[in-house]
């Protein structure tokens, strides 16, 4: 089941992950269901998929994609990370659709997961978004632009707040910030629950919940120097003033008030003595 976030421009698709003790990136004892997200940015007949969701949701993602872009349609893909929760549907998507361009960073080419023939055919379609590395292993401040269609770009940047090589995307057109594995804390009680937190839903999020999800994966945060991370994050949100936070898992956060509130939770979570 896909949900439109911005008419004709942005759609979220993907399934739910049952939190049953078999998931490493949520706090211990977490229950309920966590949405797993892939986002389709559309401009006219051009499509850019941000992440590809989990293999366990392959069928629904591919069927939804077929409905949105047409069976066998052309699509470009941007991976926010080369981790399995983002990339594990690449091969089935390549089997059913035409992957026009693949935007990834790091040294791993995700097409390497394919058999020799498909790899040979697809290799040239990969665009390295972090081709220029700085001396100390930083990948900051080399914003790349992915052109979705003439006049519509996704700006790409490596965030200061990350674990593995990670890229955030900024779609000015819809005011959406794609935050990969941060802001992942929105979970649902039921599998058919509301996967978008906006002004129409009662938002029961707490700072403890935000910190719990952040520290589950970023376990070093509580023992780290966090001021630079808070400053960077505050500055990013002041500059962009996003309307939508679109993480690769967890509920989508929609509306400026909601976004501001959750930024506050995150800034507090990045002040571990407050939590």
């Amino acid at each position, binding site marked *: 089941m896909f949900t439109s976030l911005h008419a004709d421009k942005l759609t979220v698709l993907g399934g739910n992950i049952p939190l049953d003790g078999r998931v490493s990136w949520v706090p211990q004892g977490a229950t309920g269901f966590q949405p797993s997200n892939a986002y389709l940015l559309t401009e006219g007949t051009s499509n850019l998929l941000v992440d590809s969701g*989990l293999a366990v949701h392959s069928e629904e993602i591919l069927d939804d994609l077929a409905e949105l872009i047409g069976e066998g349609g052309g699509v470009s893909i941007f991976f926010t990370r080369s981790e399995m929760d983002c990339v594990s549907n690449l091969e089935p998507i390549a089997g059913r659709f035409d992957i026009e361009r693949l935007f990834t960073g790091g040294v791993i080419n995700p097409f390497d997961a394919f058999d020799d023939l498909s790899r040979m055919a697809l290799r040239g379609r990969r665009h390295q978004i972090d081709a220029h590395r700085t001396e100390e292993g930083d990948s900051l401040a080399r914003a790349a632009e992915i052109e979705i269609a003439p006049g519509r770009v996704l700006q790409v940047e490596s965030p200061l707040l990350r674990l593995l090589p990670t890229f955030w995307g900024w779609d000015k057109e819809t005011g959406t910030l794609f935050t990969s594995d941060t802001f992942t804390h929105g979970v649902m009680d039921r599998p058919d629950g509301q996967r978008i937190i906006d002004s129409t839903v009662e938002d029961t999020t707490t700072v403890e919940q935000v910190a719990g999800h952040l520290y589950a994966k970023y376990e070093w945060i509580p023992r780290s120097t966090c001021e*630079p991370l808070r400053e960077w994050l505050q500055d990013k949100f002041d500059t962009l003033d996003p309307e939508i936070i679109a993480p690769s898992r967890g509920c989508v956060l929609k509306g400026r008030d909601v976004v501001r509130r959750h930024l506050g939770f995150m800034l507090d979570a990045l002040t571990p003595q407050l939590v």
Partner: protein
Amino acid sequence: MEEQLVETMSSDLPRSVAKGVTWMSSCLPFHLADRVIHGHNSTYLVQGEHSSILVDTGNPSSWPIISSTLDELLDGRELTYVFPTHPELPHTGNLPRLVEKYPNIQVVGDTRDYHLFYPQIVPNLHAKVPGDKVDLGGQEFVVVEALIRDLPNTQWGFAPGAGVLFTADGFCYMHRPELDDEDPVHLPGECGLTTGELQVPIAVENAAFFTGSALYWARFANDADAVYDRVLHLIDELGVTSVAPTHGNFISNIRDVEPIIRAGHKRAYRYETAQP
């Protein structure tokens, strides 16, 4: 830079590095303007009298060579276990192919998340926690808590009979001061050398560079001494004689190498003045 289609296995490998332990590595060649450098992507086979365990699976693009090396080393027997240290492509990318080749194989370790990434291998998943042991016949494999890790479900392993500690992305480093890639690299001809055999010793700045990028959190957390003190304690407690990382040369002289990695890790911290 022209990318290679298939990773190559150095002719120096596979190589037996301890009792029952074989170092298998594919090397991904990177063609730079003036030279070719290699990135290790190792797997290790630990063999006992009746069973064997593969530590990490290697990258999917090196499957053909890994598969044929396994054929050679197992000599007609099935692979009993595979221990993926953590779910990143270079470490787990061949899980589906291994299950296809050895349908009864048991995937052991911290198997959280794998049901979401590889739904087809769920029947093969056997969760283990630190302290759990796998009996290979005259050889054991023990699951150990990972003390240096990138993902929350990273685990280390130890083969007591061989004295080898398997550390995944921990203790990966490069040793060429003039090289500056984010991944630990070496030059052709050094693929199968242990750290004790290398001509050029590791430099602290190389360890710092690698730690600062591959273990990105090191720039924010100022706790290298605590981390490496725990590692040394583990090394003493278990009786570790050598360390087998996934992306670097096999470490035959851990006591010499540890202080360099520790110093590099310390240097990766960025906010010295911000600390009281």
